[in-house]
């Protein structure tokens, strides 16, 4: 955490860029509203949105916490199940031809359209939210980690065979670490999709969460409150993505993409 703060303030260029761009966009937005006076029903100023948030921060944060929890549970399950499924697909010709084929085909359909079905199956509690988050996030995770598990140099596998490595040793010592960069790529897409899934779940049914807050505010034509929720979602989405990215840097210092980065900051 300290390292993170230091990097933020000490100004690692990329992180700083993000904050500068966001600040500039908010400023332009504020000035735009100030000059053109759009109806507050269409576009409220950022300052107004912030003030609205501080009228009832506890309310927003409670709903946000619920959405965040749904997202994280859905995402966590998608990583665990996704990795297990990928390993199965790699080692089983049968799973490859059934589960993997099905997954690739299903990936191209708009899966949010299935959300109402989950409500019928699971009711209006937290379960369908988690399930939809899981369903959306697991696709990129499985597809990318299968790719990663397969991207092992055949001579590395030959070496393992010559050394009489067990399948378990091959998996843990070669295939899995080799797949990590790919898995992280899938997880970065997956974490954003998990958040989308949780929100969609709240849109479809239920009475809690930021998605639900947006629906309520929309019903009252309360644009400002819609924007408070959107802004909070934007922040949470960015932070989640950043955390996955940060975990990747910690875990994969050896990887090419990370090396290029450290070279640049080193010079």
């Amino acid at each position, binding site marked *: 955490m300290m390292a993170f703060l230091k990097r933020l303030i000490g100004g690692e260029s990329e992180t700083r860029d993000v904050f500068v761009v966001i600040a500039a966009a908010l400023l332009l937005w504020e000035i735009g509203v100030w000059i053109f006076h759009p109806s507050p029903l269409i576009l409220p100023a950022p300052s107004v949105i912030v003030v609205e948030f501080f009228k009832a921060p506890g309310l927003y944060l409670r709903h946000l916490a619920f959405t965040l929890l749904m997202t994280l549970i859905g995402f966590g399950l998608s990583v665990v199940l996704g990795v297990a499924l990928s390993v199965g697909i790699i080692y089983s010709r049968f799973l490859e031809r059934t589960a993997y084929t099905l997954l690739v085909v299903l990936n191209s359909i708009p899966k949010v359209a299935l959300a109402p079905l989950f409500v019928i199956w699971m009711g209006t509690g937290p379960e369908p939210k988690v399930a939809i988050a899981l369903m959306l996030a697991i696709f990129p995770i499985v597809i990318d980690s299968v790719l990663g598990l397969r991207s092992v*140099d055949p*001579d*590395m596998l*030959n*070496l*393992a*065979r*010559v*050394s*009489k*490595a*067990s399948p378990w*040793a*091959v998996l843990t*010592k*070669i295939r899995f*670490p*080799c797949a990590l960069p790919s898995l992280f790529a899938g997880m970065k897409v997956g974490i954003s999709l998990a958040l989308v899934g949780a929100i969609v779940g709240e849109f479809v049914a239920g009475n809690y969460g930021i998605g639900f807050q947006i629906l309520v505010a929309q019903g009252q034509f309360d644009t400002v409150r819609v924007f408070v929720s959107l802004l909070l979602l934007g922040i949470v989405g960015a932070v989640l993505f950043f955390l996955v990215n940060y975990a990747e840097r910690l875990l*994969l210092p*050896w*990887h*090419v993409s990370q*090396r290029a980065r450290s070279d640049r900051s080193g010079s």
Partner: protein
Amino acid sequence: MRSSNEIAVAAANAAGAYVSLSQVGKTYASARGPIPALVDINLDIKPHEFVSVVGPSGCGKSTLLKLVAGLEGVSAGSVQIAGRPLNGPPDGLGVVFQRDVLLDWRTILDNVLLSIEFTRKPSAAERARAMGLLKRFGLAGFEDRFPFELSGGMRQRASICRALLADPELLLMDEPFGALDAMTRDDLNVELAQIWQDTRKTLLFITHSIVEAVFLSDRVVMMSKTPGKIVDTITVDLPRPRRLAVRDSAEFATFVQRIRHHFAELGILKE
């Protein structure tokens, strides 16, 4: 099923040879039909002998190595190692591939220890042996570095250390220096000649460099293409230990010329 008589005959044929290939053929199945990669390969390698295989690319050199390593099965004939028919990778085998295949996330020392770690935790003695090998190959001080911090030559040295760690009887090398620049390659040739002199491993060395083959080997096996077969074998009786300067000698040039000439006759090389 083989009769005991046949086994006895095979053992007699292989007597004195550590590696013995008799009438070996290999045909790959592919979508466009069978690809005959090797036909009628007969080759005996004596214990402690350094044998090189030279031939144009695609003539089946890697296939030959994989057959001896037990990584591929033969389509015809038989491969025997230490008198026993091969069934999967044999014990006491070290392999070096053209690409160093070091694991990016392991230090150089841990990469060298990998061949043992696949099956068990390396002992303190084995760690010490790994350190010794690295030192011997000029990698002292690099044990804790990661592969990406090393040059191509250093990486390939590390992968040779890895192959030598378990002190194998038989060492197989598939164009190990093929991706290196000429100077590094010369260095490694000298180092390999030295280590072979000291350890006397039975060594099957694949290369497409005639000069490299003559410099290193007791015998050079020449292969021709499609399908791959052995066209000739030349015994190189240059005195050992060999230094790089031996390459300037007239005898050396004669060996190289004989091999080159032979390939030219076969239409594989232009003279």
